[in-house]
């Protein structure tokens, strides 16, 4: 079957002449290739049969009465004798009731079957996100197409990483919403080979109408071949992938992503991979080691030896060495992962890259030095003073001062005294200047830049949303707070001032 979707007159004519009669003959429901299809079709036929019968009856009676009892004169009145007939009325209450109950029972019976996955079904994971579908097969293969074996039940476990989505394949008589925070399960058994569309049925935002995937039902042998081909991690659509791209696939299939995030968000089970490669890592003894190639390698192969501060030992499974070896005995799978970790780090350098990639130093940027020079104290511009006092009020209402002292005294969070413009050491060991950008980032996304000695996740991440609504109408408040911070610091300088007042270009 082909997927030629060019719109056009020919298409329309073809549809009219070929499809419409077929559609009408099938009472509108599309032909289903699922084993549950006949049930649904039967129920549909039954209800529609009843519906058509009664609709025709009603229309015929209506037209007949309108003609037969048409008033000849204005003064003609209807028969005032019969205004109710309990037996008749009970009849036309009870007959519909019985018919409706039959429909209900059938509907429920079939639905129970459609809703309960048989045991021993082949299992595929479905990941929905705005606006694409990803299918993960048991052998680790990942694809944007859903391959199904004909004649075998398949169980789909579906998750969403953002909003609601709807998994709908009308020609397999199946629909289920994918609710974030839950694992939604459906099962399918297709009877014979076919190709069809999976479309998102639950509204999910701008790209909703483009969120679809091909569904390919194949004979079991062919299906196995297809899934095997997907699992060839080195290639995609027949093209050889870069090492980092392969690593990206692996970190999903091997499940690294479950504990190590790529976003830098704190609080994961394991340390984030963002900006890890090439950075300085604190171990439990207070020593600092550099996350170079060797370090990453042994961290993956021998997790038991790791002693990263803040992360208990024994959590990370030590099965990855074997798995990686199975995928690529020559160690390239491991290198692929490390290449991927490097691609996510701004500290990546020749020592942290896998040897295979070292010569091409253009692919990865070495870390940039802090650009702002150390600073000296300077007075704030007079125009900023109103902002300072506004900021002062704001930090009290938001409760910032519950954790940050303004006097230099220690607290839950670092003191704000002399913070703005000063040099700050991060957990990563890096030293940065607390300029405007840094302060802003700290407030909006605490945890992305963790100050040494601070615990990830202590500062609430909600200030960002409190301070920046849609299209950032609260930008002013944020600036006021940063002006206030500047007023507390002897190191404040133009780089730590918010832009606008006093900092003319």
């Amino acid at each position, binding site marked *: 079957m082909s997927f030629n979707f060019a719109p056009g007159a020919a298409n329309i004519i073809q549809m009219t002449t070929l499809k419409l009669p077929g559609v009408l003959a099938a009472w509108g429901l599309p032909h289903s290739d699922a084993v549950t299809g006949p049930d649904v079709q039967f129920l549909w036929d039954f209800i529609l049969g009843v519906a058509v019968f009664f609709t025709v009856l009603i229309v015929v009676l209506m037209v007949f009465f309108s003609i037969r009892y048409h*008033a000849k004169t204005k003064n003609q009145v209807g028969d005032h004798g019969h205004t109710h007939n309990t037996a008749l009325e009970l009849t036309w209450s009870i007959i519909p009731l019985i018919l409706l109950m039959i429909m209900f029972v059938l509907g429920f019976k079939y639905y129970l079957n459609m809703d309960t996955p048989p045991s021993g079904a082949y299992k595929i994971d479905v990941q929905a996100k705005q606006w694409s579908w990803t299918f993960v097969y048991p052998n680790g293969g990942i694809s944007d197409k859903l391959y199904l074996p004909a004649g075998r039940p398949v169980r789909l476990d579906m998750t969403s990483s953002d909003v609601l989505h*709807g998994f709908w394949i009308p020609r397999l008589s199946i629909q289920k919403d994918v609710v974030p925070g839950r694992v939604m399960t459906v099962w399918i058994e297709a009877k014979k080979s076919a190709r069809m569309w999976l479309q998102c049925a639950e509204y999910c935002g701008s790209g909703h109408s483009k969120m679809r995937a091909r569904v390919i039902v194949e004979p079991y042998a062919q299906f196995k071949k297809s899934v095997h081909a997907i699992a060839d991690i080195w290639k995609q659509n027949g093209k050889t992938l870069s090492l980092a791209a392969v690593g990206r696939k692996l970190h999903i299939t091997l499940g690294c992503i479950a504990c190590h995030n790529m976003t830098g968000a704190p609080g994961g089970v394991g340390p984030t991979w963002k900006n890890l490669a090439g950075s300085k890592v604190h171990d439990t003894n207070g020593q600092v080691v550099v996350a170079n190639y060797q370090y990453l390698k042994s961290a993956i192969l021998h997790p038991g030896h790791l002693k990263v501060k803040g992360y208990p030992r024994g959590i990370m499974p030590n099965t990855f060495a074997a798995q990686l070896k199975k995928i690529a005995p020559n160690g390239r799978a491991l290198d692929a992962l490390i290449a991927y970790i490097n691609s996510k780090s701004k500290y990546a350098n020749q020592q942290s890259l896998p040897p295979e990639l070292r010569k091409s130093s253009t692919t990865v940027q070495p870390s940039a030095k802090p650009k702002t020079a150390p600073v000296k104290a300077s007075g704030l511009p007079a125009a900023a003073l109103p902002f300072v006092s506004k900021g002062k009020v704001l930090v009290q209402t938001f409760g910032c001062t519950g954790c940050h002292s303004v006097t230099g005294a220690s607290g839950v969070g670092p003191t704000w005294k002399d913070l703005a413009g000063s040099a700050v050491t991060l957990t990563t060991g890096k030293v940065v200047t607390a300029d405007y950008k840094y302060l802003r980032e700290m407030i909006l996304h605490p945890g992305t830049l963790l100050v040494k000695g601070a615990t990830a996740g202590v500062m609430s991440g909600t200030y960002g949303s409190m301070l920046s609504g849609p299209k950032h109408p609260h930008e002013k408040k944020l600036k006021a707070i940063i002006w206030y911070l500047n007023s507390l610091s002897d190191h404040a300088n133009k780089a730590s001032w918010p832009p606008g007042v006093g900092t003319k270009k």
Partner: protein
Amino acid sequence: MTTAEISEHIGEHAPIGGNYLNQGKGIKSWLFTLDHKRIGLMYLISGLTMFFIGGMLAMVIRTQLLVPNGLIFHGSYEAYKHYNQVFTLHGIIMVFMVLVPIPPGALGNFVLPLMLGAKDVAFPRLNLLSYYLYITGAIMAVVSTLLGAVDTGWTFYTPFSIQTETYVVWMVLGIFLLGFSSILTGLNFIVTIHKLRAPGMKWFRMPMFVWASYATSIIQVAATPVLGVTLLLLVAERVMGVGIFNSALGGDPVLFQDFFWFYSHPAVYIMILPAMGIVGEIITVFSRKPIFGYKFIVMSSLAIALIGFVVWGHHLFVNGQSAEWDAIFSFMTFFVAVPSAVKVFNWLATMYKGAISLSTPMLYALSFIVLFTIGGFTGVILGALATNVVLHDTYFVVAHFHYVMMGGTIIAFIGGLHYWWPKMFGKMYNETLGRITCVMLFIGINLTFFPQFIVGAEGMPRRYATYLPQYQLYMIASTVGAYIQLAAFLLMAGYLIHSLVRGKKAPANPWGASTLDWSMASPPTTGNFQEMPVVTQGPYHYDDMEYDGRLGGFVHVDPVPALAGAGVEH
């Protein structure tokens, strides 16, 4: 407790004589009016304006969908987002600003006290407050749209509605006010029906429409607060990050859906019950025969209102609700379909041996029966679990609810508007054009929405800015239907406006109706009744009136003693 004192000095009343339209002049006499009829008219005008805006948005939607890649918004996510904003606004306007508030607000306000033999609703000032809450809510919706139009769909499902950068909070607060307005209207009507019936107006002598409004009001008072809470929590979610509806914070998005539908399913009955009431009135009057099975119809209205509270889960069959709950909700959904069926059969039986005239309102009522039957039966298909999971969130659902809301509520509302038009404005409209328009609308609605059943079952999901080309044929048919509807509405606007300016003067009772709302001159005076009406029999009896050709309307003659007890007598 406050309205009385605050607005003590606001309402000045016009002297007796003339009618409610000209008793009291100037804009202030309208803006601060306490007259239920004037408030009803203000609702009518506001509602029709909103209907026009919502309708134009619908035309944008239908035009976009003429070609698979989108005729208006195409090529980028940003463009699709605009499309999403358009259908969201269309849905919000139509549901929250037209379908829910306008049938009670416009027709209910105007007709209810007249039918009961009352001079006004129980709390006229509260009534005005409701109206202004409605206007304020609508204004907030406009503000939100100007700031950054919402793109969540009218259902505001979380977590998307928490994440989107559009101005959800404004819109949601606006709808919150609309909800409040709805509660106060319902409260007002309930007390009015309980306390302001004319002497002799026993419960079972009340017209169908009053009963329908009563059932509607119960839902308004009991269900709308849940919408309020849902919306407030959504605001809290966006502003404070509460986490009740947000899976990222340990909450549950499905809980939001439960809350939302706990209101919004009963809300569909807020929309349909007044429509059923209107249709009941029209059918008996134009069949010139008492309604068949009055008590059954009354009971079915109340049953729909009550059972309607326990079926909301049928919107959540594919959302991971447990199979037991699925079964319960599916069962209740089938159960609630029975009273609807009963009503249809009773209306048909009313026509049997009647003396039927196919005037414009009657044509609308008959259109309603056909369209509602189709809408109801497709609802039954959706209520069955096995078929629901194939059809949920597709154009099939879109077609279902447009058949019941457009083909049901709007058609009945327009039928009611034509029916009470002479009473409201004292003018007749062009009957021929009225009938032509009704037929055009009937054709337009079927052409628009019937193909959507097929395309939905074929595999087209709802809320799609672009679609697979194999659906284009149906989409084109649907769009053509929409343009026919537009033409019909423009024609209607034309002859109705013409009727206001040039229309023939309307008699007190042009249709020969026997309910109290037709017992005074058209239009009524501010005080409605010169003297308190005393009710001695049921609402529908047509053998004690005669057509007077000079007046162009019906006048009462002495009732034939043998038949005095006919109709519904208790």
